């Protein structure tokens, strides 16, 4: 009898934990949207900060995302192909896996330190969008590799065997049989990496700096992203001077949260469609 009572109590606690988690999220998102939605107007989205908007941050974010993904995708997918298709269990493979897992845990700010010293100072000579994107590419690489690896692993062995049996080489098999089948999963990997790129702040703050007023033109110019701009609005301008900035910061937060919600829904949509196709 006591065991039943204990169970009721314990299950009640786990229910509470689940409910608290959901409430925290609802509260955070609700709070940001409730205080920030009024800021969102066409002027806010399409005008530069000097006219009260965030257009430079939106363009900067797109810039950074495109550059970062362009650098990280070939490396990430290549590494994933090696790990799933070629790697045998030896010390190099173990070292590579250790490297990826460790890299995934290195704090964003340490990437920033490294990117600042190597890309911004030694290679490019200036803190700029490209320095930021190169740093971010290093940071998202583990995400990209792991997610692509999952996607490639999910392709049935029979597809590979059929292709090899027809006389295709290993590489032809990968290019024409495995990768097309893994494509939806690889898309998910890219979208996840875009998400990380959008939310990342600390490493860009150091390696790229914030240049809120500048509309980025060349990859060697300074710029800002939505996350950096939010930080700038919230921290680098005292609200006592500009109380309006808080609402603008919240408005930027709303845009960021919407982007993250879209990204999460996209990955869900792709993986549910993909799963359905695999069953058929």
């Amino acid at each position, binding site marked *: 009898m006591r065991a039943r009572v204990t169970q009721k109590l314990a299950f009640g606690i786990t229910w509470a934990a689940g409910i608290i988690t959901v409430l925290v999220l609802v509260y955070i998102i609700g709070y940001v949207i409730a205080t920030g939605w009024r800021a969102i107007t066409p002027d806010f989205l399409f005008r530069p900060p000097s006219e009260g908007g965030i257009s430079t941050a939106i363009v900067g974010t797109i810039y950074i995302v495109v550059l970062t993904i362009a650098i990280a995708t070939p490396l990430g997918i290549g590494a994933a*192909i090696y790990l799933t298709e070629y790697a045998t269990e030896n010390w190099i493979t173990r070292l590579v896996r250790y490297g990826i897992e460790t890299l995934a845990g290195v704090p964003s700010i340490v990437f920033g330190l490294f990117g600042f010293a190597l890309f911004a100072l030694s290679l490019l000579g200036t803190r700029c969008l490209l320095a930021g994107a190169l740093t971010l590419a290093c940071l998202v690489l583990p995400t990209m590799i792991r997610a692509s690896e999952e996607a490639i692993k999910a392709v049935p062995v029979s597809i590979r065997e059929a292709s090899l049996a027809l006389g295709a080489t290993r590489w032809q098999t990968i290019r024409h049989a495995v990768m097309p089948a893994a494509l939806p999963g690889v898309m998910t990997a890219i979208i996840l990496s875009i998400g990380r790129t959008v939310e990342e702040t600390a490493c860009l703050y150091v390696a790229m700096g914030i240049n809120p007023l500048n509309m980025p033109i060349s990859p060697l110019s300074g710029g800002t992203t939505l996350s950096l701009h939010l930080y700038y609005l919230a921290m680098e301008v005292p609200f006592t001077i500009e109380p309006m900035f808080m609402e603008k910061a919240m408005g930027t*937060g709303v845009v960021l949260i919407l982007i993250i919600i879209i990204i999460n829904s996209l990955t869900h949509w792709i993986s549910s469609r993909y799963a359905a196709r695999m069953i058929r």
Partner: protein
Amino acid sequence: MSRYLVDKAGRRLVFLAALVAILILLLIALFTFKEGLPAFLKIGFVKFIFGTKWSVAGGEFGILPFILASIYVTLGALLLSVPLGVSCAIFLAEVAPHRAREIVRPTVELLVGIPSVVYGLVGMLVVVPRMGDSLLAAIIVLTVMVLPTIISISEDSLRAVPHGYKEGALALGATHWQAIWHVMLPQARSGIATAVILGMGRAIGETMAMIMVIGNSIIIPTSPLSPARTLTGTLAMELGYASPGSLHWSALFATGVVLFILILALNSIAFIQRREGEG
């Protein structure tokens, strides 16, 4: 003939891509150590780690206040998020009906995705007005931020427990909870430990949200309500104006080295833990 050449070239190419991750890790280590070394040599390792004064103008660089702040904030956040996260993981893996799970799981994924500056901003406006810029405010914000890590890895490790274990316990007359508590949780122990270690890594590395709520004063924190400054916060706030090559610059990179070694140690423990869990 040429397709065999392409085959060979392709293989080489993806092998090189796989090596890039290690290369980056080595470069990070190399660059932070190289830039940080002068500070260790000039200030002395012990004086740098245990020095209580950090003054750019005075040329004094000791990082004990930052180390303590980082440790307090991390332990505080884990103290709150581990019980909550593991309970939530049990809920997701064992207790929740299908529909509840369909609500909680996407929630956890969204919590991971929200940028740290948004957490910081909400913390500034909701938490800070109640208690001031302080360790406690940072702990509360950080608790929410590490929660998803703890939940998802703990849930995975609970799901990895073989079905037979739970069924065996139930067949012996245990209640569902007894099976969870006495059989599944001990089995999932190494996975949950990994979750805690990785959560700890996230907490130590968190930067922007901490700067926004912790007050950033360079003092040794004496109470949960006192302001403080973390290792990461110091780096972010001062790197922009340190002139390359100066002692200040080097001291910042040396701080990065301390952070890097801390994370390397934590991750190696997690890596070994996970290997053992699998084996």
